Structures are given as structure tokens and as C-alpha cells.
């Protein structure tokens, strides 16, 4: 697998490490009800198809990335900086 880091270009899988669903960016408020925290921490859509997940360019520029990817074909459709995605989500919330 090769992932295109927005900074470093296309790099081999071995430079990256994986975290999981990009829903990790949507951290509930501290006082959110327990169910919301449970869903955030544990429940997953786990789609067989297109998913968005978090990768870390660990052996590279240390950027956290949101990769849009197909879990059945391993096709990669997009790769964005997690920082940008998170900031955009905040803008949208306001």
C-alpha cells in the first residue's frame, strides 16, 4: 500500500501507522452523556467499502492524516491533514 502524504508525496505503507476511524476527531464534550462517550470510544460503522480513517506519518513528517479509503479494494480516494479536517469541523460547528 502507498499513501500520498500531502507534504511528503506518495510513500510506502511502512512509513505510516494506523489509528482507526476518523470519528476519533469528533471527541464529545467533557460533560457529554456516557452513551455519547461510549459510542465515541467503542462503536464503529466498520464499513465494507469507503471509510475515513486516521493514519500517522510516523517515519516521515509526523502529520496525522485522514485517509479516505475502500476497505474492500484498498483503493485510496483522498488524503487530508487531520488538522485541516478538525479545524474545518470546528468552523462548521460554529
Amino acid at each position, binding site marked *: *500500500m502507498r499513501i500520498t502524504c500531502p507534504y511528503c508525496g*506518495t510513500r*510506502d505503507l511502512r512509513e505510516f*501507522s494506523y489509528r482507526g476511524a476518523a470519528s476519533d476527531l469528533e471527541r464529545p464534550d*467533557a460533560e*457529554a452523556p*456516557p452513551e455519547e462517550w461510549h459510542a465515541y470510544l467503542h462503536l464503529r460503522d466498520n464499513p465494507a467499502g469507503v471509510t475515513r480513517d486516521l493514519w*500517522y506519518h*510516523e517515519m516521515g513528517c509526523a502529520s496525522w492524516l485522514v485517509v479516505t479509503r475502500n476497505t474492500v479494494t*484498498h483503493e485510496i480516494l483522498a488524503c487530508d491533514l487531520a488538522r485541516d479536517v478538525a479545524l474545518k469541523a470546528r468552523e462548521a460547528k460554529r
Partner: protein
Amino acid sequence: MRIDGAGLINRNKPVTFSFDGRSYQGFEGDTLASALLANGVRLMGRSFKYHRPRGVFTAGSEEPNALMTVGRGAAQTPNVRATVQEIYEGLEARSQNRWPSLSADLLSVNDLLSPFLGAGFYYKTFMWPRSFWEKLYEPVIRRAAGLGALSGAPDTARYDRAYAFCDLLVVGSGPSGLMAALTAARAGADVILCEEDSAFGGRLNSEAEEIDGAPARDWVQAVLAELDSLPNVRLMKRTTVTGAYDQGTYGALQRVALHMADPGDRPLETFWHIAAKACVLAAGALERPIAFPMNDRPGVMMASALRSYLHRFNVAPGKRVAVFGNNDGARQTAEDLRAAGVEVAALVDSRPEAELPVGFNAFKGAQVIHTKGYMGLKSITVSTGSREEVIEADCLAVSGGWNPTLHLTCHMGARPVWDETLAAFLPAEKSVPGMIPAGAAKGIFSTAGCLADGQRAAKEALKALGLKAKASDLPAASDAPYSVAPLWQVPGKGRAWLDFQNDVTVKDVKQAAQENFRSVEHMKRYTTQGMATDQGKNSNVGALAVLADATGRGIPETGTTTFRPPFAPVSIAAMGAGARGKGFAPERFTTSHAANIARGAPMIEAGLWYRPSYFPRPGDAGWQEACNREVGFVRNAVGVCDVSTLGKIDIQGPDAAAFLDFVYCNTFSTLKEGRVRYGLMLREDGHVMDDGTCARLGETHYLMTTTTAAAGQVMKHLEFVSQALRPELDVSFTSVTEHWAQFAVAGPKSRALLDSLLDAPVDESAFPFMGCGAVTVAGVPARLFRISFSGEHAYEIAVPARYGAALYGDLVARAEVLGGGAYGMEALNVLRIEKGFITHAEIHGRTTAFDIGMGRMVSARKDCIGKAASRREGLSGPEREQLVGLRPVLPEGRLPAGAHLFSENRPPTRENSEGYVTSTCFSPSLGHEIALGFLKNGPLRRGEVVKLVDHLRGVETLCTVCDPVFIDPDGGRMRG
């Protein structure tokens, strides 16, 4: 025997090698198989199950029979394909899976028992008595099974791995591959051409073909010369592309020096990762056998293989050769044999309408229905339906048609598609992104067709790459059509083999169907069809056809055959190259390493680092004595220890304080400049991730310390929190672990030591307990932290790493003058256990802040990572096992770590286990063992006597639950 001809062997370079102890001569360019055939050797191996005598069957990596062991001692290599292994001077080959010898193999008795050893027989027996499976049945089966043997000695040869990048990867160098490479290279594409064989050219090396009116090999040489001259082309022969992976990644195995008597510093093999924007799969096709009765005799081989031996190696595999086929390959083979002056015993074509040339003992619409010759073919029986004829022959060439070599197209899960006309599977469309099958690999079997298709495929690839092909003519070549009449099995008396190596016959597949293993996957697994070293390259399609027939379905309805990486087996040494010994992970050394080694300290691994265990002295009774001495240094004088391995993260920015408040469960925004605070970090799941101190060096500047083990994990975590969860915070961090060498100076005389060392004495007001600041040593700027992991008055001093070795030597020398010295990990561990300080033995991933008595550190006034999850009911409360100290009731009592804790009168069972011991040591300060552990509701059970049981080491002892701080509980020494 060797015949005249202009093959690819060098008759001026004879090569001597041996097989089963006998010396033979071949020529440079020979494979082991061709050289043995040239010497009249037909028996080359034994089958896996029935130990039947077998001869060479193919001329490529798909060989199922002629597997041998090459080399001796640590160089012994099992399961080497004689058809691939090039001979070199002194090569030693041995047959395998036989005892005592290849010609007299006792286990060939299995062959006589074959009626009882059919498909899946072992699932139905060997069940009684139960204990006999491990004791008798299994060991016997295991010894009988297997092919060659590993030497058992470490593989000390060199291997390596490498990366390559290209626009276009061309797999295979037959007419399609060469044409594709040439077309792409001329257009300026960056091309890699991989060829599994030791010579480029594919089938053109093995056929009497002409291109542009000259021998095809001339064209091959001309193309190679041009490719070789281009800077944008990389030619890789002896390189098998083994797998297709995501986003244009390919694995390839290059046999760099396996054909050399003395490889020198060359790796035997290199495993390549090739990142290619496009790929032309021009891997050709594999000829398939026909399952006729007793088709496994030594001397029976594929017709294309026979032509390879004839044309490329100038070897006639027999004196009287018969040919049997269902396509024009049979006729071609007969004609080639005749042209080479070899007697053709019979030409048998199963097609009634076949046009056969005159002058042969030819049979149309006929089949070979039987053979004779246990140790080597003696005769075949041909049936035309109306009559049968026994014909003497010592070699039979068989052609059942061709299967495109489409294996790589299956590696991403695509299934090939059945083509009725070609009676073969073809690659599915877009099976691997960027891969374009061409030529025989996609079912085009004429030379002219392959040349044209190679060019077409290259153009398609160039278009995708945004390059333009230069106009060029196609060379002229034969365009003979391919016609095949499917013939999968010939009925008759006797077994008809499908999978030669695994001894799977037509009967086995039929029996599987009879037992309702009708899915092709079930049939494969039940019969072991296709699971031998060729992975069904020779037999899968035939077996599928037999299954289709047995279940009354067509081939496409029955299923498809699929393939997984690797295309051809890859040695573990090549794919794991560089990892032998210490190469598995980087080694990290502190600046004090050499000094510690010089003092004879055994070094132990701490993550990737090496740290001294203890410092032995002459006359020590053992490590315990050294450890006790070093504990004494710290408790009574001063000890020095390199703590550079702890992670140090420099955190700066206007929002540094807010950031730390979020990642630590306690508060850091309130920490004064020049002060240090202990911090506890949770994972988002509410359990403890790591702990350490964090110093505030300036208003917006902190220095975080992590444990040695978790440094990388914490850094990654901080990056995640900063980039993904708190992107609005303006903070940045960088690891300075490597820049600073840091040493603990601990003990009542630590201050005295530092006063003698530093350019100015330690200022008590600037360095109270948990103070920090800048100092200088011999003019070198340093950092001083008044922190303690031993419970004593202690400091840590950090200097730029270039001075680490010098400072360490100086510190230890000064400590020794003061009655102290260096201390190692053993002493460090004792010191911290005596003080109840935790490490990853306690924060092992399942403990919460509550469990370690730090529940109140989770600040109520702010959010932090892990806070929400830590409030779940299951993460605190009396049911939790919580941190306690343990001391033995009797002074000699042992408290081994890993023991479980029970109420005094309860038997030691799972239901009764109430906790366990995590850390233990002999406390020289107290004169007995002490331990830390976790006990249900522990803090409220102080004073209670509990039973400690270590079944593994036979310890059962009573101990008293106590406070985890064994020494100086109010911390006076540390603060004083």
C-alpha cells in the same frame, strides 16, 4: 543425452557437479535438470505421499517432481527446483524424501497401500486410542511427510532487500514483454524488465522460431542490446515478480548469487519492492498435463519442457520419444525432435480432425491409456478407441494445452474468467489497478500475436502515464493459430495423476465430489490438490475440470481457481534480510555505554536501549551483592545512574500550559517556572498511559519526561492530540531525548558531589525539592533538576550529549571518592520499590488512576484525555485490585512477582484470586523481601495477612498488606 545444436549452453565451459554423491559434467548455462538429463539421469525425486519415483516434468519454477537439496552444512537448501538451479563448479545436489536411497525408498510401500490412503483418509481414522495420536500416529506421519530438510544450523549467508521505482514494470521477457519494454523505453518511460529465468527471451529461447526471417534469438539479442543502452531501463534477470500489492507495489525475488560457487559479499538473494505506476504482465503461459492412467513415470514430461531441453540446452531427454497432445504443440514437438535427429516413437493427437505431418507413427483421435516402467518409462499404450497398441518409448512429451500465467492478476482478489474457445482461464478485466496483461498471459499464443500485443499493452500503459509511443513496425513472426480440444482425463485402468507432488489423482477428486466436497475450495482442501510447492500451477485447471465433470457442472459454474502471493516460493531469509541477530530492531546506546561495559556491567534491554544491570566487583557472590552495594551508595552516600533513556519532550508555545492540562490528568498551568511536577497521563479509555515529571522552564516552555518504554507512544499521542483534537492550541513539541545526556545523582551526598562539580555550588533557594534550572559544568550549559526516583535527596543533571561520556566518568569518579559509585537497573528497581514508586510493572495498561491511589489527581476542574472514560463505574470502587505493599510474615518469606494473592483460608483457585504481585525485591534497607502488588480493595486491608501463591515456582507464603511506601513514608529525606 547431449545433441548438436546452438542452444544457450557454453560448450567451452564444462562444469562438474554431483548428484547423490555421483559426479557429473554439464556446461555453463545448464540447469541441474538439463545437465542430469544430458547425463541420462531420469529418476530425480520421489512424490510426497506415495513416494513414487519421479523424473523431471517441466523446465521452469513450476516443477513438481525434480526437487532437490543443494549444498551442505549451513548452506544446505531444501526443495530446490532442478529446473531453475543453474549448475556451478562443485555444486552438490541430493535427492530428498527417500530412505535409504532414491532408487530404493522404503516408504514406497505407501504406494501399495494407496487404496487405503485416498483423499481425506486421515480424517476418518487414527482416532483410537486417543493417546496414540501424539505418541504414534502423528510422529510417523510427520516423519513420512515433508520434502527436504533444513540443516538446523543458522543461515549465515548474506541476503538483502531493496527498493526500486519505475513508470512501467514489465513482468516477463518473451516476445510480448520485450516488445512492451522496448516500446515503453523508446517513449522515454522509466522501465524495469523482470525475467524469472537466467536468460531473457522467454519461450523464444526454447522454440525453433524465427523473427524477421532470422532465428528469434537474434531478435532477442538486438532488443536487449538496445534496452541495455538506454539509461531509463533496468534489466533484471533471475528475478521473479512474486506478488502484486496495493497502489502499484510489487514484490520480486532476485537470485543474485545462487548460481555462483563463491558469492563473496554478494547476497544470495535480494527481495525487491518495486513501486510501479503501471505494469505489463507478460508472464507467458504454462503448458498443462493430461491426466491419463499412470502418467507419472520418470520420462513423462511436458512437451514444451522437452522443446526447452532440446533447443535451449541441446539435450534429448530420451532415445525413443513419444508425443501426446490435444493441440498443435504435439505435432510441433514431433517435428522438432525429428529435426534434431531424435527418434519419434509415436505422435498421438487426441483430435480426430488433427492434421498430422507424414513420416511419423501418428495416431489421430487417439489417447495414451497406460504406461509401463516403474523407475522410468518403458512403454506407452495408445488407444484409438478401436484398437490398442503398446509402443516402446523412454520419454513421453505431453501437451494438454496452455494456461495463461495470470497468477499476479489474482493477488488482489480478482477471479479469472473461463474462456471456452481457449479452454483456459483468462485474467479478469482490471484485476489489479495499473496492470495490463499481454500476450500469452492473456491468451494470445502466436509469436506474432504476442509481439503485437506487447506493443499494444505498452501503448496503453504509456497513455496512462501521459507519454506517447514512437511509431515503429512490428517484426514479422509466425502467426500460427492455436486450436485445442479440451482433454482433461483419459479413462482407463490405473491411477491418473493431477497433482503429481501431492499424489492427488482423478479418483481422489471424484471421491471428494462423492463425499459432497463439491465447492472447489472444499475439494482442494480435502484432497490437498494444488497445495504442493507448485501451488497447482500444473494441476488446478485440470482438477477443476475433473470436479466439474464429477458434479455434472460446467467449469465456470464449478468455480474458479485463484492464486495468492507469492507466485513462486520466497526464502524467509530474503524477505527478512538484515534482521538476523541484532538486525531485528535498532540498538540505542547511551553515552555512558562504553564506561559501563568497561566496568563489566551486564547490559540489559530497556525498550531499544541498553542499560547496565549492575556493576560487579571482584569477590562478589553474585548480582545480589552488587545490587545491595549500589543501593547502599544511594541510601548512604551518592549514586550515579544514566537516565538519558527516559523520553524528553520539549514543549513550547503560547498554549503549552493549556495543552499540558489537557494531556495530563493533573494540572500544569499552575506550575511555577523553575519547578517540576509529577504528571499522570491517561489514555482516552480511562486507564493510565504513562507517568513522569514535567518541568516548567519558562512561561511558555515545558520539558516533559516520559518512561523509557513509552517515549515513542507518548510523542505520537501528543501529536494526535495537538493536530487532531486541539488544533486551535498554538503549541509545538520536539523530542530532545537524543540531545541531552542526563544522569541521576542520588543520595545524601549528592549535593556535595554537585557542589564540587558545578561551576557554582547548588543554590538551595533555586533548587528546592522539585526545582529546576540552568547551571554550568566546566563552562558547558547544563540543566539541573532536583527530582528523586529513589526517595533520597537527589538531582538529575543534563548536558548536551557530546559531553555525556565525559560527565558520566567524572560523576562516577566523584561519587566513588564520596563512598558511592555507579548504580544499575537492579539497584534502581530496589530503590523505587522501597519507596513505592511505580513503573510499567504496575501501570501495565489495565490500571486506572484509582487503582494506583491517584484517583484524586484526575482534576475535577478541567477536561483531560481519559477523564470521561475513567468515570465509568467499572473503573473504580472496591471490586478493583488496587496498589498495595506486601511484606512477608516470616522474614525469609519470598514474594515472587507474578504470584497471586488469596485470603488466608481460601484455596488458590481462579475464583479466589484477589490480586497479584507486580514488583519484588530484597530490600537491603529492611533485610527482607518486599513487594508491590494489586489487591482487591487493598488500601482498606492494610495490616491483613494474605496468602501468596506462586504455583510455578512452588512458593506459598503469608504476607502482610501494607502501605506501598516502605521507607521514609513522609518523604523527609527527599525533601531535606
